[in-house]
Every structure is written in structure tokens, then in C-alpha cells.
């Protein structure tokens, strides 16, 4: 059973003082001129559902300038049921977030992020194009975020793995600079490999499934050229311990760990061409969208729930045929909230089945059902 948001209240969130958005199942279009708060509203929905901002690791930025806390409250409905739960997040910079589901405190942020709100989201912000266009770390982050949102055990392993690698790196530098005898290097290797294997195995299991969904989405969005995702290993599961041991002297010299899932990458290919290096802007954008839809399908398959799609300014830069395909995807979702400056991107048939949310200067002006174009 899938969940969607009926309403979201934003208090001191970005440019909102206190506003409530009433949301519908299916497609919701947030419309407004530049710099009015469209992106901020989508961010607030993700913040409420996942417990953190998908846009920035510096979360004090989401608190309205001049305010000392922010709070979001959502009414979450289960598809096909009258049951509703209320989920609230209060956050004052420097303090722990207060997360409550129907008044009861959530146990931990990791557990909450992995579906504690009862709903899930897949987000697209224009900057996400870096998943295809950007550095290996952007792609790893995409994979890790997806798997972490489904499996708290993966989330914990990935976090602890990063800590273990940081410890090992520091040890390598201490050995190089003569501050450590290196007696504990084998121990840190073992710790790193234990955790790294969980991360690697998780990614290995996910990738073929994700690739199938990616191919399907890109075929619809782009065309019949053969798409592929190819994982690039610094070491496979079988070679991992051995490779790490063999890297000892080189690692000591460099002061960093050269082998492991924190060094891996994946290639996004279309017709055999690597889109990171050779893709056009439009191809990169469509491949990013296809990855996001693949993430949606992956979540659907893994937990049997349809995540809420939050797609920011997604229609711009796309030609008409592609916009139509996308609108179709959104309409068949349990819930999609997308933003645009221009309702002309949508035809009347789509708008008739859509809730329109008009935004101006951090206020939600009106919500209209069968979208009247104005």
C-alpha cells in the first residue's frame, strides 16, 4: 500500500513564515514566478518525509533567515484507506531534530529515514544532473542514498565504513610520518573490509535490477538506443582483502586508502557512449531522470510501495514529446509534486486531472483542482 501527503504545513521553512499546502493524490503542479518558493516547497516535503534536506548538508540553511527554528507538519494518508497519520519535524540549528509520528518520538534518524514516516520520496532537483555529469562521488552518493533509504543496515554499514576508512587513512599518514609502528594496520584492514563488503554486496545486488529499470525508462524517455549501467570496481568482493593488503606500501606513501567501495564508480552508457564524458546536456538530463525513475521502480519492487515523486523544474529544457511522456509518468504515480514557472508546458487533458498550487513570495495563494489555466 502506498502513502501520499494530504497536506504540509511549513513554519519558518526557507522563505515561508507559516503556510499550508493542500495536496492531492496523483499529479500536483506547483506554479509561480522565479524566486517565489517552488523549490523550497518541494524541499520541505522531502525534509518532512526523510528527516533531512535533499538539497544541502548544511541544514541550518533551511531555517528562515531571522528565525531560530523550523517546523514542518504533514498529514500522511494511506492509499485506499481513511487512516491518516501526522508526522512533524522540529529543528533548531545546533540541536537534535524532534521527529514525531502521531505524537510519538521517532527512535533514530536512520530508522526514520528508512520509511519511518510511512511514506517515501524520490526527488529530482536540476542540480541532480551531476549524478550523470559529475564526479564518481556524485554517483556513489546516489546509490548509497537509495539503498540507505530502504535498508537501515546498509545505511549503518556505509556510515561506519566511511569512519573506518577515515581511521585507516589517518593511520597510514601516521605510519608514513613515523608516528605509528603500524601494528594495527591489519586490524583496520579487517574492520574496513568487513564493513566495505556489506556496502559492496548491497550495491552488487541492487545494480542489475536498477539497470533493468533504467533501460526501460530511458527507452521511453529517449529512444531505442541500448542503455546500460556498468559498475567500475577498484576491487571485487573476492579480491577485496587481498587487494587492500597489496596496496599497503602505496597507501602508506599516499596516505589514503586506494581500494574499496569508496573509490568505485559506475558508467552510464547510451549506445555504447559514456554519457558522463560525451553526453549532450539533454541526454544527461534524460539519463538523470531515467535513473530517478529507476530508483522509483526499485523502491516499488523492494517494498511494494510507490514513492512520492518530487521533481523540481523538470519540464524546462525538454522537447514537447518528452514532456508528454513525463506528464504520463506523473499522472500514474500515487503522488507526484512537480514545479514549473509555466503551465503552458501541460495540455488541458493533463491539467484537468491535476491539482494546481499557486505560489507567490512564500505564500500559497490558492489550490485549484481541475486546473484552470489563468
Amino acid at each position, binding site marked *: 500500500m502506498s502513502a501520499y501527503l494530504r497536506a504540509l504545513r511549513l513554519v519558518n521553512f526557507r522563505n515561508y513564515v507559516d503556510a499550508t499546502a493542500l495536496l492531492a493524490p496523483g499529479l500536483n503542479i506547483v506554479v509561480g514566478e522565479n524566486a517565489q518558493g517552488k523549490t523550497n516547497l518541494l524541499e520541505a516535503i522531502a525534509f518532512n518525509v526523510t528527516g533531512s534536506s535533499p538539497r544541502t548538508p548544511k541544514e541550518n540553511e533551511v531555517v528562515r533567515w531571522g528565525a531560530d527554528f523550523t517546523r514542518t507538519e504533514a498529514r500522511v494518508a494511506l492509499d485506499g484507506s481513511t487512516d491518516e497519520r501526522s508526522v512533524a519535524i522540529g529543528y533548531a540549528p545546533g540541536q537534535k531534530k524532534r521527529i514525531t509520528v502521531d505524537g510519538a518520538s521517532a527512535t533514530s534518524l536512520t530508522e526514520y529515514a528508512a520509511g519511518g514516516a510511512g511514506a517515501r520520496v524520490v526527488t529530482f532537483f536540476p542540480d541532480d544532473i551531476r549524478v550523470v555529469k559529475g564526479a564518481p562521488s556524485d554517483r556513489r552518493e546516489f546509490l548509497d542514498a537509495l539503498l540507505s533509504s530502504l535498508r537501515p543496515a546498509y545505511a549503518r554499514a556505509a556510515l561506519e565504513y566511511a569512519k573506518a576508512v577515515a581511521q585507516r587513512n589517518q593511520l597510514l599518514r601516521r605510519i608514513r610520518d613515523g608516528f605509528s609502528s603500524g601494528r*594495527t594496520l591489519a586490524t583496520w584492514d579487517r574492520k574496513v573490509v568487513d564493513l566495505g563488503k556489506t556496502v559492496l554486496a548491497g550495491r552488487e545486488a541492487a545494480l542489475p535490477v536498477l539497470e533493468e529499470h533504467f533501460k526501460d525508462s530511458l527507452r521511453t524517455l529517449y529512444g531505442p538506443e541500448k542503455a546500460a549501467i556498468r559498475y567500475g570496481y577498484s576491487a571485487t568482493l573476492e579480491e577485496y582483502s587481498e587487494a587492500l593488503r597489496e596496496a599497503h606500501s602505496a597507501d602508506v606513501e599516499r596516505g589514503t586508502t586506494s581500494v574499496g567501495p569508496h573509490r568505485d564508480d559506475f558508467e552510464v552508457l547510451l549506445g555504447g557512449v559514456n554519457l558522463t564524458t560525451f553526453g549532450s546536456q539533454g541526454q544527461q538530463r534524460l539519463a538523470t531522470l531515467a535513473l530517478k525513475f529507476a530508483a522509483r521502480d526499485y523502491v516499488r519492487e523492494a517494498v511494494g510501495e510507490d514513492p512520492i515523486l518530487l521533481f523540481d523544474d523538470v519540464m524546462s529544457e525538454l522537447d514537447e514529446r518528452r514532456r508528454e511522456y513525463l506528464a504520463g509518468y506523473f499522472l500514474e504515480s500515487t503522488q507526484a509534486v512537480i514545479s514549473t514557472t509555466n503551465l503552458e508546458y501541460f495540455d488541458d487533458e493533463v491539467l484537468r486531472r491535476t491539482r494546481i498550487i499557486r505560489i507567490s513570495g512564500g505564500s500559497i495563494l490558492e489550490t485549484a483542482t481541475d486546473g484552470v489555466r489563468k
Partner: protein
Amino acid sequence: MATYARPVERLITELSKLPSIGPRSAQRIAFHVIRGKKEDAIGLAEALKEVKEKIKPCRRCFNLTEADECEICRDARRDRSVICVVEDPYDIGPIERTNEYRGLYHVLGGALSPLDGIEPEDLRIAELIERVRNEGTGELVIATNPNTTGEATALFIAQEVKDLPVRVTALASGLPVGGDLEYADEVTLGRAFAGRREL
């Protein structure tokens, strides 16, 4: 920053050196002391002095004690064939309260952490190995914190004693990962003891 009379400033400075006490709390505590009764303040000062003068590490297990050896080491009813290895003296209290464990302890004084510059030589690992040799220990239960540094320390110790005739076990999972022993509740900790695993 407002400035106060020198003794007040000094008190605030000393207080803010304490863990989890920032300048604001330090100031609040200082003024609480100034406002309060003189006997209370002197009581606190004497308690601080006494603890530094009288408390020292147990020469066997490095738990805190007033005597040469701590009460646990001196207790003839304890099972001397088992040693539970912890990071800090305050990890002993929670384990004692589970009533699951009747052996001895060994306090390492921290955990391996290159990021904090902590090497095996900075911990009481050599002393532990010495004890295993001399006391004919049959089992080491490693109860370091269930986080990265604690677990690395456990692995290292297991490695160091692997040629000695001692069984090495670790607490069963069920403890919150990434957590501290200090905060584990008694039931969870008790279960972790009952289900300890070979390391």
C-alpha cells in the same frame, strides 16, 4: 563578553573545561554557586580534592579504587578465570547491574583511534596480555563499545592473544550499533552477555 571579578572569571573558565559544559552553562553554574550556601560550595571543592587525592587505578585491573586493588579484584567469590575487557571505568557499572557477570575486569583506558592518535601503547593492552599469562585466564570477554573504534580494539586484542590458551569472546549484537556501552540499558546488555560470540 561581560567581564566579572577575577575569581568569578576563573571559576567560569575552570567549569567550561568540563565535558559538555559550554560557556553559557559554565556561567549559569558559577552564579548558582555564588548565590548558594558557603557550605555547599566548600563541600563541592572538598569532594573534588578528595577524589583526586584518594582515588587511583587498581593495580590489577585499572578500575578506580581507594585501595591498591579494587573491590572486585579483592572479592574472593568472583570467577578469576574470566576477564571482561572494557574501555573505561564507568563501563563497569552497567555490566555489574545486569547481574549476569561474575568474573574480573580489565580497563583499557580508551580505544584504538588513529584519528585521536591513540595507539596500542597508549592503552593497557600489554598489561592485559601480562595478566592473561600470569593469571591463567580461560576467557576474555571483550566489551568495548559497539562502534568503529571499539570493534577495531576488540579485533586487535583477539589478534594479540591468539597464541595464548585463552578463549576470546565478544558481546552478542543486539547492542545499538555505533553506540556506547554507558547508554545501553540493562536488559539489552544482559542479553548481550548471555549470547556472547567467539571472536
